[in-house]
């Protein structure tokens, strides 16, 4: 089911300014969708447009079937939002705050209390819920922000940089939680990150923005598929890497150094090649690498297939 749809959505903050979001046409479905892009790419702008908090300069969009310009209130009733910046009053107890946010989202008092306790347990704040939020760590604050986005049982959640400021362990916990919301809770999630690599593990679909433009919108699988590229590490004399590269070139392979590794492009296969042919080509490539190393007398530390990563989208498509 499509939960978010945009058509040529464009936002300029000033008439002379470059667009913060330019001509964006995407569809977002159930599950977890990652919205990725460097700082300033337009992720938060998109979320505010979807909530009806900003008016688009041109183009249109709908969230859960409500138009983003005309149906702002209906959208804000049905959607949970976790902003990227601090948004917690320090002098409130977490439980009181989440109950309160449930109330202003339209829950009756008893339901708000019950659900606040529920979601605080789900985000892992059950024990700390009676503490004032001013004393919370960044990880606890992010969980409290997430709890208030879930308290009214939204039909969609928009999470703006939920892992921002977290240490690696807390980031993993948060990402696991995001995945649970999208899959176990059954609430579609749009989650943003400026860290290109982190969302690929938890999202079903990834949208990549660059300077307000759509770079890609694809199933995560497409990003992670075996790219056919082979990475090789050799040891030996100081110039072992360079000699290896030259020898590979002599055998008709395109390669380039990448740090301490050598990156070898896949052999181009005919268009009608099937999976089996690809595997065969791959094995042959590895054999060639092994033979070349043996001929040169350099040690082969490792030969590995490279799977795609989000970073590569940028390397491939953004001119440096």
């Amino acid at each position, binding site marked *: 089911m499509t939960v978010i749809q945009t058509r040529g959505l464009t936002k300029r903050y000033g008439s002379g300014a470059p667009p913060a979001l330019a001509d964006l046409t995407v569809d977002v479905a159930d599950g977890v969708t990652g919205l990725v892009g460097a700082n300033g790419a337009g992720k938060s702008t998109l979320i505010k447009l979807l909530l009806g908090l900003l008016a688009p300069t041109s183009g249109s969009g709908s969230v859960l079937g409500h138009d983003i310009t005309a149906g702002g209130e209906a959208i804000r009733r049905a959607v949970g939002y976790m902003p990227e910046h601090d948004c917690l*009053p320090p002098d409130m107890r977490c439980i009181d705050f989440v109950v309160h946010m449930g109330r*202003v989202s339209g829950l009756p008092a008893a339901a708000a209390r019950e659900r606040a306790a529920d979601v605080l347990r*789900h985000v892992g704040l059950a024990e700390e819920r009676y503490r004032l939020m001013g004393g919370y760590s960044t990880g606890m604050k992010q969980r409290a922000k997430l709890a208030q986005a879930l308290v009214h049982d939204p039909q969609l959640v928009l999470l703006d940089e939920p892992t921002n400021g977290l240490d690696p362990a807390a980031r993993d916990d948060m990402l696991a939680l995001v995945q649970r919301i999208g899959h176990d809770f059954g609430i579609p999630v749009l989650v943003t990150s400026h860290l290109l690599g982190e969302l690929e593990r938890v999202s079903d679909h990834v949208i990549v923005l660059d300077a307000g433009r759509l770079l890609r919108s694809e199933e995560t699988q497409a990003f992670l598929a075996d790219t056919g590229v082979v990475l090789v590490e050799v040891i030996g004399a100081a110039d072992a890497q360079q000699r290896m590269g030259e020898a590979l070139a002599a055998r008709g392979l395109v390669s380039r150094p990448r740090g301490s590794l050598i990156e070898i492009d896949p052999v181009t296969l005919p268009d009608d090649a099937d999976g089996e042919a690809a595997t065969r080509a791959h094995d042959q490539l590895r054999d060639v690498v092994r033979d070349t190393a043996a001929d040169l007398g350099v040690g082969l530390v490792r030969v590995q297939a490279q799977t795609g990563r989000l970073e590569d989208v940028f390397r491939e498509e953004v001119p440096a």
Partner: protein
Amino acid sequence: MSAPAERTGVIHDIGYRRYAGARMSSAGIAGSLLASGVLAVFGFGRSGKAKILPFVLLGMTMVPAVVMVGIMSFIGLDAGLLNYASYNAGSSFLVVLFVAAQAPVLFSRDLRSGVISLYLARPLGASAFALIRWASLVLAILAFVLTPLLVLFIGGLSAGASFTEELPRVAWALAGAVVLALLVATVAALVSSWTLRRGLAIAGTIMVLLVGLGVTVALKETLFFEGMDTAAHWVSLLSPFALVDAVTAVLGGTDAQITSAPESVATGWLLVSTALALMAVGLLLLIRRYRSKGA
């Protein structure tokens, strides 16, 4: 549920429950926000020590009322002691302290802590939100100024004052208190939504309200002295306290407590209307402030 797991931050695998029950209309949400705002001014729903200041101030403003009622009952003094208008004027310092200290709870806090971005992503829009916050402050101020007046009135009646004599007098004082709450709330809301720091908001509100009162009184005296009475009456617009005092005096026939009141009833009504129009302008500014914070 195993407690040790929570401590390490591991998420429990307790199934998520959907909510299929009733949801409130926008009016219902507004009502609940209004109530929680009034309570927050008195420290409810916040830390324990947040309740101290508002209740200490409320206690202080009650003292004269309680003492007067006590004197009337025990010593049997006459009802002439019940001067509601002077109560309004006499407690203005405490009202200023109360408003200055508590308005930031409703205005600075939302904007400063960023909670505003959560509120604006909820069904109520920026305008409704700003107005509800303001209305919460109005109601809280009313609770603050009406409580001692009612104690005085009810206590006075039980000590033998005549209901029919007291009613019109207290009614004017109550009406004055309502106008005062509307105006003072607008001033304090504007000051504390612009100065995001609590300390600055408190100092700013005290400055505008108290120094404003002093300046108003001085200006009016000077103008009266110079014989420019009309100008003097309009200067009342600079201070809600001076205005309410002058207007209740001319319209309600009470004694003016702060400076002399205008003689013409028409001027009185004109002054109130102008003050309320200024208040409306202030509210538009407040709404614009919240709108700009939304995006």
